[in-house]
């Protein structure tokens, strides 16, 4: 219920500004979609960051970092730090960092049971798919 509320609140929010331009950091032509296990959550300003171990077809594990909204922005949508915790398996969709590293914007997080939550800043580009 809390997650459903969070999503509806986010969809109702208007665009605004973050501490920097989304476009300056992330390449909106390079979408990223991974599934993995959360290893770390940094619930700090200016953006929440969370890290995910992603295993490829050969068994090689790569740790990805995803940036989201500011903690205050997320908490006002009902998204608390308890929503994403180490050990959880999640799917993350976003856009890759311009520096080519394994970092990306973390626009949308989906849990194995289908629950979905946006973690982006209000003005960030979100993945196109609705699920």
């Amino acid at each position, binding site marked *: 219920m809390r997650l459903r509320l969070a999503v509806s609140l986010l969809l109702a*929010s*208007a*665009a*605004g*500004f*973050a*501490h*920097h*331009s989304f*476009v*300056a*950091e992330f390449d909106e032509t390079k979408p990223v979609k991974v599934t993995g296990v959360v290893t*770390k959550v*940094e619930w*700090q*300003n*200016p*953006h929440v*960051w969370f*890290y995910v171990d992603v295993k490829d077809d050969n068994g090689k594990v790569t*740790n990805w*970092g995803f*940036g989201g909204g*500011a*903690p*205050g*922005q997320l*908490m*006002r949508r009902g998204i608390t730090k308890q929503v994403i915790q180490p050990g959880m398996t999640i799917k993350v969709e976003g856009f890759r*960092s*311009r*520096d080519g*590293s*394994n*970092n990306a914007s973390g626009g949308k997080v989906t849990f194995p049971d289908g629950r979905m939550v946006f973690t982006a*800043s*209000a*003005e960030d*580009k979100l993945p196109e798919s609705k699920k």
Partner: protein
Amino acid sequence: MRLLWVLLIPLALLGQKPDFSGIYEWPKALPGAEHGKGSATIFDRRNFAPFKPGGEAFLEPRTGDPRHDEPRDFCLPAGMVAGMLSANAVRLVQNGQFLAIAHEFQAMTRLIPLDGRKHREGLEPMFNGDPVGHWEGDTLVIETTNFKRWMLDDYFYTNPKEYRMHSDALRAVERIHRKDASTLSYRMTIDDPKIFTEPWSQDFEMKARPDWESMGIFEYVCEENNRCPGGKCGGQ
């Protein structure tokens, strides 16, 4: 509606001004304003007033140096005007002498004198500029001047070859009026008479959120965990 009259009639009888104190959502664009990237179309070049002859110098090319092109990357303040429109809570505290605007975004704090004083002189340009307020009826008019030079840039990178600057004549004018018991009308006007033939404006609304009182305003220290200075996301 009845509540609105209960609020306004005593103020009119006493000749007092509205008290905007409370916790609010950030200024949100009115429905229908959304297009392009983001709703703050006041920064959309399509909405700019025409240039004066020579005003094109306002469009300075990006240099590739992030300290020039995107100083916010390094957690330098977005400042006025953009910071005021950031999607964070805003606390207003007002007395007869000042309106204090405590914006959650980057802990942006603005103290607006309401006692008739003039702009200060001889100051270096500032991120949030130098504001003074006065009343026009029940509308509070805040005029802010003396900005640092990149306060009106192209936040959404609508043209990657352009980086927008303003002159030292930039004025930002906010007009705040109580629309109803839970809504403030908020108009932002941009005026740079060295560059543009006329000012231009966008209307917003700020919704009171008494349900946010228990949360209050959160701390926002941008330098705490900035992972992407200069467009290079450093990760863990």
